[in-house]
């Protein structure tokens, strides 16, 4: 099975304290530590496990700048077979649709049975997977938390739905799946893996290689633009409870009782 996993380099929330920048247009990116988007890492692990079982190849792809190469290399050290960096000044500040369009062009240069994305990344909109599927006119399942290969044409996928329930679906390949965390336990990257990929060349494709009109992507093609980033202020009615979980629970019960919410 040929699997393409779309990955993104994002600020690592476990290593940084994220703050909004002074211009309110973005988070403060000075001295941030970046990693592969957590959801994407689960997707890559799932892809590796599928290929371990049924054979094939895992390719990781990202839209980003030179520095994004490091997440491709990292996922290759983990076990992905190949990486492709999609990079061009024209791609900068793309919105979700722009990213999906760039990925679509890359997908069409290969022949993939299965395409995976993370359920969401740092922008939080969670739209790339669905848009990519629509542009490719392929079936799509979101928030996938289990995958079983039925045969070389069909998968059985579980989706996380409300109330902690799971919905099971059969889906025809080629298809696009967006992967939820917890679908597996991603392996650690070991030293052997790192040594294997540390000096391999990762191909870079730009707008002209992909046959993309520069005006249709990037800032020029974006229909969604960030207006303002801010941390919501506590309203008058808001009170943050502090202390251990037990203390918070006790205080909450007290408050609910006092307000007549609990009898």
């Amino acid at each position: 099975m040929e699997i393409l996993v779309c990955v993104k380099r994002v600020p690592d929330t476990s290593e940084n304290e994220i703050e909004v920048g002074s211009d309110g247009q973005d988070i403060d990116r000075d001295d941030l530590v970046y990693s592969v988007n957590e959801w994407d890492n689960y997707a890559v692990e799932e892809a590796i496990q599928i290929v371990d079982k049924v054979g094939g190849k895992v390719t990781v792809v990202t839209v980003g700048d030179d520095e994004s190469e490091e997440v491709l290399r990292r996922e290759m050290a983990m076990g992905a077979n190949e990486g492709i960096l999609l990079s061009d000044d024209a791609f900068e500040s793309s919105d979700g649709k722009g990213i999906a369009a760039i990925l679509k062009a890359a997908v069409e240069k290969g022949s993939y049975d299965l395409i995976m994305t993370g359920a969401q990344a740092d922008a939080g909109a969670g739209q790339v997977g669905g848009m990519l599927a629509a542009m490719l006119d392929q079936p799509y399942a979101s928030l996938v938390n289990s995958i079983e290969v039925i045969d070389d044409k069909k998968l059985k996928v579980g989706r996380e739905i409300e109330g902690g329930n799971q919905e099971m679906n059969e889906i025809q390949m080629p298809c696009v799946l967006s992967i939820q965390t917890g679908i597996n336990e991603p392996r650690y990257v070991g030293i052997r893996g790192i040594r294997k990929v540390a000096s391999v060349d990762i191909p870079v494709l730009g707008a002209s290689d992909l046959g993309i009109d520069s005006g249709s992507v990037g800032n020029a093609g974006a229909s969604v633009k960030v207006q303002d980033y801010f941390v919501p202020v506590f309203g008058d009615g808001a009170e943050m409870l502090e202390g251990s979980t037990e203390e918070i629970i006790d205080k909450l019960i007290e408050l609910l009782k006092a307000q007549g919410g609990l009898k």
Partner: protein
Amino acid sequence: MNFDLTTEQKMIRREVRKFAESEIASVALELDENEEFSAELTRKMGEIGLFGMFVAEDYEGQALDYISYIIAVEEIARVDGSQAATIAAANSLGIGPIYYFGTEAQKKKYLPMLCSGEGLWGFGLTEPTAGSDAGGSTTTAVKDGNEWVINGSKIFITNAACELTMGVTVQAVTGRRENGKPECTCFLVESGTPGFKAQPMHKKMMWRASNTAELYFDDMRVPEENILGNVGDGFHQMLQTLDGGRLSIGAMGLGGAQGAYELALKYAKKREQFGQPISKFQAVGFKLADCAVEIECARNLLYKACWLRNEKRSFEKEAAMAKLYCSELMGRVANHAVQIHGGYGLMKEYNVERFYRDQKLLDIGEGTSEVQRIVISRYIGC
């Protein structure tokens, strides 16, 4: 001059850090509290390739350069001294002598297991009456036909009495040289050899999750083929092993200092007194600034020593300097870190107290700070 790490070295730092933060940070406190060596965690460290880091692939090593090895130890030490001790001792003291001085047969026999983390090997040099003066060894080996009969004991031997221990390298006196000094030879002794007893040592102040052992040899017999290198090479082998070992102790000091510094910085930015974060008080901010400066100096010194070694140039003086400086640096940083944490710094759950305790061994093991100063003073012509 180029201060950039290679892609490989950068990746190793990131991934070892990630592993340490996920797998070690969560259990370090408990293992320390229970004084428990974890075979499970050791195996996990083996799975990601933390054993046999500088060993060639022919023996299933990771074939890394020395800076990469040191970075890995540094990153483990940034989170926990005990696990870093297991790694540094296994590589530099356990695997190192077999790899550098062993016969092909010995290397093929032992290294693959040791490089996987499934087996550990100790380095038995220190004796109850021979510490800094390692030449004063009273453990003896006497030839009897095709075998050697060893009698004596060793103390404080890391990785030598746990469920993963496969054996130890033992230095014994095999005769006298013409100048009257003892002739020393190293032997590879497998666990379970009749007459050999290894006993874990407990109630340590530091490295409580690292295995430390006392060894007893009572008419223990080993075959001739268990000699490491040649008869009489022992003292030289030991000195060479310690030169490399000093770099890994340096890495433990540097990594520990980095870890304690980061904890202190984070705490100082959060903790408020007199209406502001304590990091804004000059007395606290200056302490942290001093730590940052010294850590930068220590890293440059240690990496330079490793670079010299990579380049096959003489690195012994720099190794002694790096061992001394990094070890003592961690002492200063851990002390500041506890101070900055105030009363909380003395409580186990804040972790800095473990760094404070774990540091002390670095001033003592693999040549005390005094011994390093002796070595350095000789190199500079005193």
